[in-house]
């Protein structure tokens, strides 16, 4: 997995110049937003559902230890195994060992963001395993050797033209000559290729949308059915999940699934929803011989204790990025790691460290649209602001901004001085503008005037005008 959140600025700049990316992004954006709106309006009281979702998640987090223990017991009772991984390295080691034990050569995978978080693909490939992504979007970016750019639509940054070219290269050795093809045709072609892989895989790896403590089940939703083929056909099923995904009951999970589908894709229900309970039992028509659940911490218990706990409510629906104007401008890769957009700008610094992610909490106008659509009401702007405070306290803000703030603060907290200085500065600026009303260029404000004119101030400040008027009116 690429890791370059430090490079946010240059990556964002490059993204803004990338015509294909811009085309793909502008097509995707309104689709997500419109579909969600229609679904939300069709639902009787979506606000109440959000509130319920939030409570369910809060309760689960509050008693996470109890529910995780219950989950473990139930998974074991169903004949499955539970493995605890403190960090990415441990999780990779556990999974590789399981693959060895299964004498695996070929591994199929359905989409898992935790899999990306721990970099499992690279690890398995380095270990000599053949890894096949079975989610169509993941399959596309695997061919393109790129990381996902969105948590539910990993190949959203690709145009149809680019996908046509990829398939031509990998499926037809370049013989189709890049003729632009229709989506259904591309989908069928990928299915054809994947079918054989499904049937011959030794291990199937999935994520988990929710972990249900009372039954020991994992909930899996897809729109392609690929997760089901991934976990039922191979000999061994490994599910990887963050510990934060646990919820008490099936009922809770179904409430959250309703929120998830509507928020993510505007569906009432994802096309395939499956509850997996351990390995195949006697009498089951299909299913793996072994079921392993790998539970990853990777900073989550630390988050649970501090002022960022609310972030753990996240159900990974992607609505926040779909509604984020910064994400819409630069796409997911600019953020430099697994989780993009608003949720990523909070999560990434918390998982990998504030010092390696200085831009992420700042690359946001705090417009609040993300929080207004988040199905579990995570106050993302507030959390981003808290991260900014942490950065500031830890001395991670660059000296230019720090100095600027100190300079401005010096005056702003000394009103008398402030108004004298402001009056002078305004007079100078007004004179410099020579009645044109604006500046096309102003050296001190190059960040502004690079792309827009700067309105010039009037001759006097409001306070000055007011004082004079008051005198005249005898106020």
């Amino acid at each position, binding site marked *: 997995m690429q890791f370059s959140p430090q490079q946010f*600025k240059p990556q*964002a*700049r490059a993204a*803004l110049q990338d015509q294909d990316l811009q085309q793909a992004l502008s097509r995707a954006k309104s689709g997500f937003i419109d579909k969600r709106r229609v679904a939300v309006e069709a639902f009787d009281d979506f606000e109440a559902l959000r509130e319920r979702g939030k409570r369910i998640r809060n309760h689960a987090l509050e008693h996470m230890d109890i529910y995780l223990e219950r989950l473990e017991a139930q998974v074991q009772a169903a004949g499955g195994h539970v493995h605890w991984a403190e960090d990415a390295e441990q999780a990779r080691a556990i999974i590789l060992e399981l693959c060895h034990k299964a004498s695996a050569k070929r591994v199929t995978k359905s989409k898992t963001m935790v899999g990306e978080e721990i970099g499992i693909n690279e690890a398995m490939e380095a270990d000599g395993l053949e890894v096949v992504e079975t989610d169509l979007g993941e399959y596309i970016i695997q061919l393109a050797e790129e990381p996902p750019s969105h948590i539910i639509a990993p190949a959203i940054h690709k145009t149809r033209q680019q996908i046509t070219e990829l398939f031509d290269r990998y499926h037809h050795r370049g013989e189709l000559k890049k003729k632009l093809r229709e989506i259904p045709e591309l989908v069928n072609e990928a299915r054809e290729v994947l079918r054989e892989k499904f049937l011959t895989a030794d291990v199937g790896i999935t994520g988990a949308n929710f972990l249900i403590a009372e039954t020991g089940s994992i909930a899996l939703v897809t729109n392609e059915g690929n997760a089901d083929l991934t976990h039922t056909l191979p000999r061994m099923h490994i599910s990887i999940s963050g510990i934060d995904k646990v919820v008490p009951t099936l009922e809770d999970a179904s409430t959250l699934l309703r929120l998830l589908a509507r928020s993510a894709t505007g569906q009432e229900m994802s096309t395939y929803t499956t509850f997996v309970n351990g390995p195949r039992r006697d009498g089951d028509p299909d299913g793996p011989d072994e079921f392993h659940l790998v539970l990853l911490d990777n900073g989550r218990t630390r988050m649970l204790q501090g002022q960022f706990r609310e972030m753990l409510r996240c159900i990974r629906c992607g609505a926040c990025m779909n509604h984020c*104007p*910064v994400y819409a*401008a630069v796409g997911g890769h600019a953020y430099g790691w697994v989780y993009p957009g608003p949720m990523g700008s909070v999560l990434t610094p918390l998982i990998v460290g504030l010092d390696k992610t200085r831009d992420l909490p*700042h*690359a*946001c*106008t*705090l*417009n*609040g*649209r993300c*929080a*207004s659509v988040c199905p579990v009401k995570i106050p993302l702007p507030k959390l981003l*602001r808290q991260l*900014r*405070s942490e950065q*500031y*306290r830890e001395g991670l*803000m660059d000296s230019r901004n720090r100095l600027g*703030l*100190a300079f*401005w*603060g010096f005056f*702003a*907290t000394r*009103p*008398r001085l*402030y*108004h004298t200085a*402001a009056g002078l*500065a*305004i007079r100078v600026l007004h004179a410099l503008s020579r*009645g*044109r*009303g*604006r500046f*096309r260029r102003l050296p001190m404000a190059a*960040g*502004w005037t*690079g*792309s*827009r*004119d*700067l*309105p*010039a*101030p*009037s001759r006097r*400040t*409001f*306070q*000055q*005008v*007011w*004082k004079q008027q008051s005198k005249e*009116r005898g106020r």
Partner: protein
Amino acid sequence: MTDTTPTREKPIVALFATCLVDLFRPNVGLATVRLLEQAGFAVEVPQQQTCCGQPAYNSGDDDRAAALARQVIRQFERYSYVVVPSGSCAGTIITHYPELLRGDKEWQDAAYRLAERTWELTRFLTEVSGQQTEVPAEYAGRITYHDSCSGLRELNIRQQPRTLLSAVKGLELVEMEERDTCCGFGGTFCIKYPEISERMVSNKVEAIRQTGAETLLAGDLGCLMNMAGRMQRLNVPVRAYHVAEVLAGMTDVPAIGEEENR
């Protein structure tokens, strides 16, 4: 102003003009005063006011932001009404001061008290003064209205300015696509990430242009300066005013960023 009634008989409103209005566009402050006076209030402008502290708060510099919050509280706590012609500065006082001062019970209580008495201008005019149907202004032309983010999502300002504008004679409101999408200003954001901000404001300008409106209105000077500046750079002939200027009938001055002797 012909009104000569002694001010002490009227309820008093303190105006928090905001630093941008103070520095860049006094006319917005004057228009706000006129609107409040028309609504039957006497207006006072505490002279020591500077800035609400948002630049520090949004940069994570909580100590400096808290110092400014205490300064504003001290200057305004004796008033029953504080009116602000900006959703984002009003939002800072109303929703963020109590949060910012949570470490100190006394100050936090004071912050809550101030929050209860602080109003964004259009909301004050529609909900407190109850004068919304008697706006006497005139403005000939087609306008479009940008919902600034903080006002919209922190304070629920959406219908209020439209209600007030619907009474302005000659004015026709045309809504733009994605009227509630951020314009890319974001305070220091637009300077720290100029390219991203440029894309966002360009999208906004395109939405404005598509309406065919001659004038853009909004309730926040920061967003207005951003959008007006971009329109001028792109030679899009749409004028920009603060909503208070139109409501008060004070559009006889150049629009934002416009030449002085037009």
